[in-house]
């Protein structure tokens, strides 16, 4: 097991720069998830760590040794590909034992290692099959088994679950997590799915347009997104945003005006008068009532555009002063479009961003 250290790593294809100076320290045994929209450079970063892409500039260290010019064969990392990349002409056992046989391990060792991995992954009955005779989930397991038998320095996962259907994906997600808990291997996992990122990661790295937006634990990212991008990317349904201008109230508290109503902003927000700000509130944190007043504070008038029932929750799609809002509530809601109601914004759940540079202000 090992630690990986990335210093000011950049990648360009000709004149096009796809990664701009990435810095990241990955601890031993840590499960890191790289997440971001497609084209953000997360797969490229993973492939650079693997040695499958050249490093344009910057340094990559594994356990303290510089790896920039080391070929993938010698980095001792295991990778699970999105397509699984199982060797079609080899049986499951041969696939899993391939790296050991390349290393020249004796047959008995290979059999033992493959057998153990197969047991963990419930593949004992399929060892003699060819990959084409396996289901999607089984192939996925073989790909993981191929990584496990090697006891590599770290596991690299490149969107390993995206070829599975939703149900199997949830299941395999849990298996990967359990496997990590059992093996404690350093893991880097690339995905575009924020739920996968939240559920699997010790720490999440959010990438956008070749830059790191934020690094933190899942709950840090959820509770305190440092940029508007992270706020919008993490959490479902997506956070609601609206733009406003800062006013200063009589008691020197900052206020923001929205839908004809002035709301108190969090006390710690670093704002000044007339500053344009973007306020974000999660759909789960909004409260709707039929009356304008609640606990002495004023709500904004809104009209229902659509109601979605998911069973557990109700999603209300609202038009609030011309801005589209989503409210998620646990209550069964008996209303119809275009009924009118009032939305209440609570100060403590507000995320305040600078409209100009989209950085967090509270």
């Amino acid at each position: 097991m090992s630690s990986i250290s990335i210093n000011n790593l950049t990648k360009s294809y000709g004149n096009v720069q796809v990664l701009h100076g990435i810095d990241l320290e990955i601890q031993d045994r840590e499960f890191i998830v790289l997440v971001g929209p497609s084209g953000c450079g997360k797969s490229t970063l993973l492939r650079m760590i693997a040695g499958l892409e050249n490093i344009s500039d910057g340094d990559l260290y594994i356990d303290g040794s510089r790896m920039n010019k080391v070929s993938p064969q010698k980095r001792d990392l295991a990778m699970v590909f999105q397509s699984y990349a199982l060797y079609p002409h080899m049986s499951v056992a041969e696939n899993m034992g391939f790296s050991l046989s390349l290393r020249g391990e004796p047959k008995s060792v290979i059999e033992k290692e493959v057998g153990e991995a197969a047991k963990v992954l419930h593949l004992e009955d399929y060892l003699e099959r060819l990959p084409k005779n396996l289901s999607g989930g089984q192939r996925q397991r073989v790909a993981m088994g191929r990584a496990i038998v090697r006891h590599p320095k770290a596991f690299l996962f490149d969107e390993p679950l995206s070829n599975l259907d939703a149900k199997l994906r949830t299941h395999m997600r849990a298996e990967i997590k359990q496997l990590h808990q059992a093996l404690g291997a350093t893991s880097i996992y690339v995905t575009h799915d924020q739920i996968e990122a939240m559920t699997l990661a010790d720490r999440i790295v959010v990438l956008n347009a070749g830059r790191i937006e934020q690094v933190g634990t899942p709950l840090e990212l959820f509770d305190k997104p440092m940029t508007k991008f992270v706020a919008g990317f993490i959490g479902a349904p997506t956070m609601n945003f609206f733009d406003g201008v800062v006013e200063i109230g009589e008691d020197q508290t900052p206020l923001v005006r929205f839908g004809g109503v002035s709301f108190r902003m969090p006390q710690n927000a670093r704002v000044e008068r007339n500053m344009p700000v973007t306020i974000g509130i999660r759909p789960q944190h909004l409260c709707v009532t039929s009356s304008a007043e609640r606990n002495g504070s004023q709500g904004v008038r809104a009209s229902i555009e659509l109601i979605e029932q998911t069973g557990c929750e109700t999603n209300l799609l609202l038009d609030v002063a011309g801005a589209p809002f989503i409210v998620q509530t646990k209550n069964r809601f008996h209303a119809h479009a275009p009924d009118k109601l009032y939305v209440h914004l609570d100060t403590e759940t507000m995320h305040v961003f600078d409209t100009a540079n989209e950085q967090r202000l509270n």
Partner: protein
Amino acid sequence: MPRKVVHSVLCWLGLSPLLIVVLFPYATMLSTALKQKDEIFQFETKWLPDTLYFGNFVELFVDRGFGRAIGNSLYISIGATLVSLLVALPAAYALSRLRIPGQSAFRTYLLVTQMISPIVLIIGLFRLFAYLGMINDLNALVFAHSAFYMAFAVWMLQSYFDTIPKELEEAAWMDGASRLKSFWRVFLPLCLPGIAVTSLFTFVNSWNEYAISLTILREGSLQTAPVKIAFLTGTLYETEWNIIMAATLIATVPVAIVFASIQSYLIRGLSLGGVK
């Protein structure tokens, strides 16, 4: 199900005129090759021979030296297949996997070499081999055929190589395989069927070629099978169709069987289950 039967009958009926025309020469070949010479030149011709007669085949090999022609054809076709594979394999691998300066120019170049029929250049080819002292040299045909069928082999191989995901090689690298090892243990076993089909195709093309062989191999003992057979019609006072049809049967049927088997393979394509 009966609906499909009706449909099938209609489909076969629609195709039948073409099928009859395609198969008619085979019936002719078979019918004639198994007859005695006198039977063909009878006033009343018939389809079925009076008795099955295999003497034509014996005469073909014993008296007419057809075995020699088959040997020449085999030498040229196998040689051309090997040489064209030798140059096409690295080119196809490079086109599929590596970055080459002027890649699209090379593709266009290959295409143009494929478009130019050797017969248009036949005078130039004759002079080239005359300079090289290779008139009446089977190796001239080996090189000529491999040059003209190479482009096709490159495309064919490249399209197979492209079906083999790059991730498989990358996975092998991650598993610790050197470039050579991953080529040898992962890439090559996977494209073996593609290489086999390409070889057979080149072989069949070379086997069937007529114009260059006719022009470059001027000596009777060096003629290839198609040239030899065509010559049988012209050199004798009366054309012995029974011998000729026996020869065409030998020269076409094995090749047709080979072709039929790979043609279905070509359409089916490689269906490897490793990816998706």
